[in-house]
């Protein structure tokens, strides 16, 4: 059995610490560098970026890669990233060009086929209704057209790209944990077909890597970042990012480079295991992991063993993340200084929206009804009052409570000037000391997330490493 593969994470989202890739490559030994650039919201951000700049990938990855590409190729460190976003092919091209510019011969693997947008009408014709997993509605029932639609791919296509010799693999929408499953399965030669046939050892190994991937996918959240007992964590001003040392049986030691800030304890690993899970079974295209079988054990300084994970068959269908443009929103926050903040908020609300503070509290979980009762011509109205002023305030921030008014509507004009003018016109005629935290701004568009599924046979995964090869999703 091969030694454990040391898989380092250098990004938990598009915008995470830029220097992390260099730190993970230079500050200690690793075999694979990976990272996650795609949150649910990121795909929508990339749509806007593509309209503006012509590409829909996470460009910061290229900036990071430029610093480390030479070292990685020299040392044989493979790089696996989902920074491809909406344009994995374009990002692959850019990586090749980067290698050319730096004089580094680099083999680039590209995993694509997750993007269903070009095939939406064909898929609908073939019977895909894209039922919303949360609401049970179909796309046609609601009558909306998505602007992004991406199937979550698993680790198998990444394994294939690595096995074909890719130094750098870029993908579109794969699951965050697939970025660890793929390299672990490649390193140890795990057999996806055996797992599909129900082989328990193969399922358990993949499930172990899935859990390790889940632990490190959010960067410093495994090493003391965003941790409830943060006062116990040393060096949290600049925590090291996590490394999973994945063994041949799928068990893994979570650790980080020596000398870096943060810590790895059973607590920091538990916290991340619990992050954004929906229950004891954690689903992935290659395997599902039973989180009620995981065992944690502190085995050394910043070293936690994750073992015992049982794998079960993955879901029949692949998950799909869609976004559509829902309309426009605007928001203004008014400062209420000093005495009687609730009376001040009530007057401001009745002036600007026509509803009282009390009524806004009664309807605080029903922004549509609140909008209906309002004199504003909008479809949703939400009010938040933060009573943050203290008694006998010596300093301005101790005296300030905040009233936040948010409006939404399909029509940008109704939540633009039509809304902000109401607030501005009240400046000299309402409660004493009225001012907003920011100048009134224009309406901004918002997206709506639509989680769904698609049949595996309806997704054509394409892996290219110096030429195309097809694998099953």
């Amino acid at each position, binding site marked *: 059995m091969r030694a454990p593969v040391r898989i380092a994470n250098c990004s938990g989202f598009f915008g995470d610490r830029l220097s992390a890739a260099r730190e993970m490559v230079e500050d200690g030994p690793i075999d694979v560098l990976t990272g996650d650039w795609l949150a649910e919201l990121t795909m929508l951000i990339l749509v806007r970026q593509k309209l503006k700049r012509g590409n829909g990938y996470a460009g910061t990855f290229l900036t990071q890669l430029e610093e480390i590409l030479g070292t990685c190729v020299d040392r044989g460190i493979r790089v696996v990233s989902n920074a491809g976003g909406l344009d994995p092919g374009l990002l692959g091209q850019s990586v090749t060009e980067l290698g050319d510019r730096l004089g580094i011969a680099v083999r680039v693997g590209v995993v694509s086929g997750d993007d269903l947008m070009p095939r939406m009408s064909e898929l609908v014709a073939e019977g895909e209704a894209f039922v919303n997993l949360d609401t049970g509605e179909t796309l046609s029932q609601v009558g909306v057209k998505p602007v992004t639609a991406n199937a979550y791919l698993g680790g198998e296509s990444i394994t294939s790209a690595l096995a074909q010799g890719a130094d750098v693999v870029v993908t579109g929408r794969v699951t965050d944990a697939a970025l660890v499953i793929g390299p672990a399965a490649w390193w140890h030669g795990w057999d996806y077909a055996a797992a599909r046939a129900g082989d328990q050892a193969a399922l358990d190994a993949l499930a172990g890597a899935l859990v390790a991937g889940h632990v490190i996918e959010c960067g410093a959240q495994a090493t003391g970042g965003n*941790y409830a007992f943060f006062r116990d964590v040393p060096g949290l001003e600049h925590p090291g990012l996590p490394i999973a040392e994945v063994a041949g049986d799928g068990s893994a030691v979570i650790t980080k480079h020596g000398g870096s800030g943060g810590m790895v304890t059973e607590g920091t690993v538990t*916290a991340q295991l619990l992050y954004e899970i929906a229950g004891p079974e954690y689903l992935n295209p290659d395997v599902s992991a039973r989180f009620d079988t995981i065992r944690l054990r502190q085995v050394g300084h910043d070293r936690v063993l994750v073992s015992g994970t049982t794998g079960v068959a993955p879901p029949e269908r692949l998950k799909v993340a869609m976004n559509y443009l829902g309309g426009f929103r605007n928001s203004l926050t008014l400062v209420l200084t000093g005495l009687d903040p609730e009376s001040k908020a009530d007057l401001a609300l009745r002036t600007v929206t026509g509803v009282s503070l009390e009524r806004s509290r009664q309807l605080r979980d029903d922004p549509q009804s609140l909008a209906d009762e309002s004199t504003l011509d909008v479809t949703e109205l939400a009010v938040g009052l933060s009573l943050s002023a203290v008694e006998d305030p010596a300093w301005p921030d101790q005296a300030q409570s905040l009233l936040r008014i948010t409006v939404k509507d399909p029509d940008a004009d109704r939540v633009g000037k039509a809304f902000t003018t109401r607030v501005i016109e009240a400046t000299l005629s309402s409660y004493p000391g009225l001012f907003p935290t920011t100048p009134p701004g224009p309406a901004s568009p918002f997206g709506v997330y639509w989680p769904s599924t698609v049949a595996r046979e309806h997704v054509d995964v394409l892996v290219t490493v110096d030429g195309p090869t097809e694998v099953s999703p």
Partner: protein
Amino acid sequence: MSTVRRPLGSFVGARSGDKGGAANVGLWVRSPRESAGVDLAHGNDADLDATESEEELADARYAWLVEVLTVDGVRRLLPETGGLRIDVHPLPNLRAVNVVIHGLLGRGVAETSRVDPQAKGLGEQLRARLVDIPSVLLGEGT
């Protein structure tokens, strides 16, 4: 049994986030080996084997946490959940509880009007709620 009114976070950790329109919060009782892990991280020596009484205290705290975090319990602690569907999944192997609140974030982070659109602070909000904690559970490390 005597109880003391203290924040839930006295010995319970939490991490929260979003999955579409659902908010989820994971809560856990600190492991009996956690203080050793922290000591090591600070460059000190530590014994990685927990004592029997440390294990028993952690087990007792977890048994109490599961009683507190029923669906109704979560609803009382977070009135914002109103009539929303709440799922509670105990994970005894981690001395943890996974709580999912469906629809708290409307139709997701980009759409919701919630001030904390990804429920990042929801776990810390829960930890700040006062609850009646049996005095015997407030041993060391509180």
